[in-house]
């Protein structure tokens, strides 16, 4: 409901105080008005009593006057005279003498003679009837629509000869007299019942006021005694109704209404009420201001803290000024400490994130950030400065000194290349970002740097030689999606080392696309299905028989996008990823199929298939290969590179034994290129040994080669193996090999590897003309 603590507190306190004040003021008001009402009620009742007394007094006066008149001998004589004019004048005389409003006589026969000579009509008849039945009645008489206080007295002369009636108008004069006698300024009025409704005797009456007044009078006559509350359009009043006796009968047809406006009754208390309300309002204002100030003092530090926390969240400086010694003050202090600690930690984390912990040099991320910042600048170059044989050096001098070595190297760099940013790319490599004019200039600068960098370095007690290789990569060359410059520089180091150079600029063309190659493997199975991977066969020429009696099946992959893929590219990958198994299964099956097709064409040839060393120890493959070769319509040979069996020699040898046992020919491939072992030749039950083409190609160049080949041929023959020379490309080599007793020749001199269709053509020609290569 409240978003601010201060508002909440203020409203709560001021609200509570205000409610209390309201209750107090209300109580005071109620007490005062109840008291005022009570006072007015009792005053009204006193006023009623006064009126009673006044009424009695007037009655007595009237009576006295009437009786006096009735005793007057002359008057009695006048009555007896039956002369109405005399009677009237006598009545008028007495009326004036007594100072009353109306006097009239009623004869024994009901004749009414009024002092002013008028005809009283029905009013007079009613009074005549009343006096005849009541002898000497008194009360209110309605004459001519006005209320009169009337009293009748018999005329005795000495017996009853009639009545004399004195009537005094109940007008405002009389009411004023009553009002003056009262202790409070009440207002008195006489109401009489006219046509069933109570109406004031004189003066205009407002209907709005009439209804509640009538109801009040009816209620009062109906049994409610004492003063009561009368609500009219003019406001509330305390009122008292006194029924007045009627001269004509007991039923009250006239009432006296005493009224006292409540507002008037409350007037004396108005000042008191105003003071109470004034004090209340002043108190409320004070409470409001006080709670505001209090809550402000309480909540301001909280607000300040609140703001500070928000600032801290946004990572801004958030220090709170401590003002007090209370809990909030302590909280603020703690907050400051915390904020400071957080800031320190943050700086530390940022430093750690961007610095190498060992050397405290900017790390790769820092270099990357700088590169990102420099992305739009031309001629920015990245250099990767890799310590040669760092692992060995570190092994000798230890981690500490290795780190020191790099620090010193970085210092040297900083000296030589001011303005460059220097960081640590990886454990053995420093990175440097610098401005230059182009790759050539950069290369020149790198060579210049190398001279100072490779100066002997003093580390602790010892002096160490340092060798550094520098890879360079331009930043401007980088396009989106390409390799990051830092990687390129690192690759350039590798390229430089491969080229036995001290520094090199990254050569994208030479690097190729290793990532693309990796994706090849996932495409290999599809390629087999789609027929992109096929078999070519290269003839093996039997020198002694002077004919082609065997073929080596070689896999070829024509990639729809990348074109011809050399086996050197995808075979090692297939071996690494396990794809070699389905590839070999395919090659074996296809070789057997092709052998069958050649046989169908009338050529029965041995077919050699290269089996990866990885598969030799695989029992599944061994079973599958044995099963596949069952259906071969000729002899199948497995060419095994001697190094291949070294992984799991026991199992591989066992499998080779089984293959040999099943009639599969076993060839030792590429003999002489690896670390050829004699024990190896002894263990493997091979029937053929293939001399690596490196020896054959250089056969004519060196006597040493000739000797090695000759002795190898002799060794193989001694062990009962045939010898095949690979890479036979010249007649000269062919002649030498033939002279050495080599059994088979394979190479471009004979024929390149070719598809089955071409092989069949070749074999047809071969049959027609026996070849001579010597």
């Amino acid at each position, binding site marked *: 409901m409240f978003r601010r603590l201060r508002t909440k507190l203020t409203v709560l306190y001021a609200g509570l105080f205000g409610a209390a004040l309201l209750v107090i003021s209300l109580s005071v008001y109620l007490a005062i008005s109840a008291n005022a009402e009570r006072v007015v009620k009792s005053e009204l009742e006193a006023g009623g009593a006064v009126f009673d007394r006044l009424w009695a007094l007037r009655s007595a006066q009237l009576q006295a006057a009437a*009786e006096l008149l009735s005793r007057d001998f002359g008057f009695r004589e006048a*009555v007896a005279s039956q002369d109405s004019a005399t009677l009237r004048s006598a009545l008028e005389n007495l009326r004036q003498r007594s100072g009353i409003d109306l006097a009239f006589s009623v004869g024994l026969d009901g004749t009414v003679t009024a002092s002013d000579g008028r005809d009283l009509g029905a009013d007079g008849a009613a009074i005549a009837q009343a006096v005849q039945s009541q002898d000497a009645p008194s009360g209110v008489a309605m004459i001519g629509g006005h209320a009169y206080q009337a009293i009748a007295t018999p005329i005795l*002369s*000495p017996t009853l000869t009639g009545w004399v009636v004195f009537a005094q108008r109940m007008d405002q004069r009389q009411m004023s007299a009553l009002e003056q006698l009262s202790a409070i300024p009440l207002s008195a009025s006489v109401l009489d019942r006219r046509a069933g409704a109570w109406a004031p005797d004189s003066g205009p009456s407002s209907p709005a006021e009439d209804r509640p007044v009538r109801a009040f009078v009816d209620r009062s006559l109906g049994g409610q005694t004492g003063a009561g509350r009368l609500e009219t359009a003019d406001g509330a009043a305390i009122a008292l109704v006194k029924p007045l006796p009627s001269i004509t009968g007991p039923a009250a047809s006239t009432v006296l209404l005493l009224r006292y406006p409540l507002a008037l009754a409350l007037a004396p208390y108005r000042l008191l009420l105003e003071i109470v309300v004034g004090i209340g309002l002043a108190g409320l204002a004070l409470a409001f201001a006080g709670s505001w100030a209090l809550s402000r003092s309480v909540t301001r530090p909280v607000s300040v803290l609140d703001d500070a926390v928000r600032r801290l969240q946004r990572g801004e400086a958030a220090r709170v000024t401590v003002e007090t010694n209370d809990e909030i003050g302590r909280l603020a202090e703690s907050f400051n400490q915390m904020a400071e600690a957080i800031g320190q930690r943050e700086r530390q984390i940022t430093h750690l994130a961007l610095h190498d912990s060992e050397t405290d040099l900017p790390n790769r991320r820092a270099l990357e950030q700088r590169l990102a910042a420099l992305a739009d600048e031309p001629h920015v170059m990245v250099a990767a400065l890799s310590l040669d044989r760092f692992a060995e050096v570190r092994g000798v001098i230890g981690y500490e000194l290795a780190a020191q070595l790099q620090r010193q190297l970085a210092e040297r760099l900083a000296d030589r290349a001011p303005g460059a940013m220097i960081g640590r790319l990886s454990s053995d490599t420093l990175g440097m970002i610098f401005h230059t004019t182009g790759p050539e200039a950069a290369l020149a600068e790198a060579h210049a740097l190398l001279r100072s960098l490779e100066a002997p370095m003093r580390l602790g007690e010892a002096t160490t030689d340092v060798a550094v290789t520098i890879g360079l990569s331009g930043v401007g060359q980088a396009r989106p999606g390409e390799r990051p410059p830092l990687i390129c520089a690192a690759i350039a180091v590798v390229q430089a080392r491969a080229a036995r150079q001290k520094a090199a600029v990254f050569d994208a063309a030479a690097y190729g696309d290793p990532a693309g190659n990796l994706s090849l493997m996932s495409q290999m199975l599809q390629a087999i299905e789609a027929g992109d991977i096929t078999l070519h066969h290269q003839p093996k020429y039997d020198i002694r028989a002077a004919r082609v009696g065997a073929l080596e099946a070689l896999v070829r992959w024509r990639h729809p996008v990348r074109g011809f893929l050399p086996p050197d590219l995808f075979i090692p990958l297939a071996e690494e990823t396990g794809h070699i198994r389905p590839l070999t299964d395919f090659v074996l099956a296809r070789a057997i199929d092709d052998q069958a097709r050649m046989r169908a064409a009338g050529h029965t040839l041995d077919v050699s298939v290269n089996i990866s060393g990885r598969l030799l120890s695989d029992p599944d493959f061994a079973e599958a290969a044995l099963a596949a070769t069952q259906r071969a319509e000729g002899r199948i040979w497995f060419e095994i590179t001697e190094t291949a069996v070294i992984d799991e020699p026991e199992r591989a040898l066992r499998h080779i034994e089984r293959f040999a046992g099943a009639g599969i020919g076993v060839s030792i491939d590429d003999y002489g290129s690896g670390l050829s072992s004699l024990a190896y030749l002894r263990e493997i039950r091979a029937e053929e040994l293939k001399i690596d083409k490196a020896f054959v190609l250089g056969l004519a160049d060196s006597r040493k080669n000739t000797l090695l080949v000759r002795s190898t041929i002799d060794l193989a023959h001694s062990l009962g193996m045939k010898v095949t020379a690979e890479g036979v490309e010249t007649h000269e080599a062919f002649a030498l090999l033939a002279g050495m007793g080599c059994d088979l020749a394979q190479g471009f001199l004979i024929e390149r590897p070719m598809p089955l269709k071409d092989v069949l053509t070749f074999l047809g020609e071969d049959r027609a003309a026996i070849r001579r290569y010597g």
Partner: protein
Amino acid sequence: MKQFAALLLVLALPLQAVAGDVAVVLRNGQGKPIADAVVTIAAPHSGPIRFAWPYRMAQQNLQFDPFVLVVPVGADVDFPNLDTVRHHVYSFSPAKTFELKLYGRDETRVVRFDKPGVVPLGCNIHDNMVAFIVVVDTPYAAKTDAAGQAVIHGVPAGPQPLRVWHPYLRAPGNAITLTVAVPRDGVVRQAVAGELRAPLEPRRMY
């Protein structure tokens, strides 16, 4: 003179038509006798009327005495003042309006009542003094005594109208009228029931 007349009357009785006496007793509902009521029988008669009682209305002890006086038409009534104070006797009655202005002790006024009717008497000085003179034109008239009895002698026999009047009798004209069968000889007794109302007493002044 009076005695002589009475004697004459008695002597005449056998000569005239037969007549009887009427004895009336007036009581109220409680059987209490009502005194001072005037009983009259409007029977035919001849000759002057004379009553055996004096035609005299004295004022004594600030009262009229008697309270009710029956006199024949044309009678002269004496108004002797036996009190030490003066009285101012008056009557506004239609039968006889007169006024005897202040007269003193042992003074006597004489008023002739020449019309039948009731003449209320008052004293202008003393309101409490009230009396009635009943002027009749019949010899058959009597006033009830303390026992409520009135006897009228020698009333001609036959049914005769009897009227009982009292100033405070609760009846129209303060009178009860009935017919009484008068015997040829002897006495007829007639009981009459009546109620008196309280006289209008002059109230004390405030």
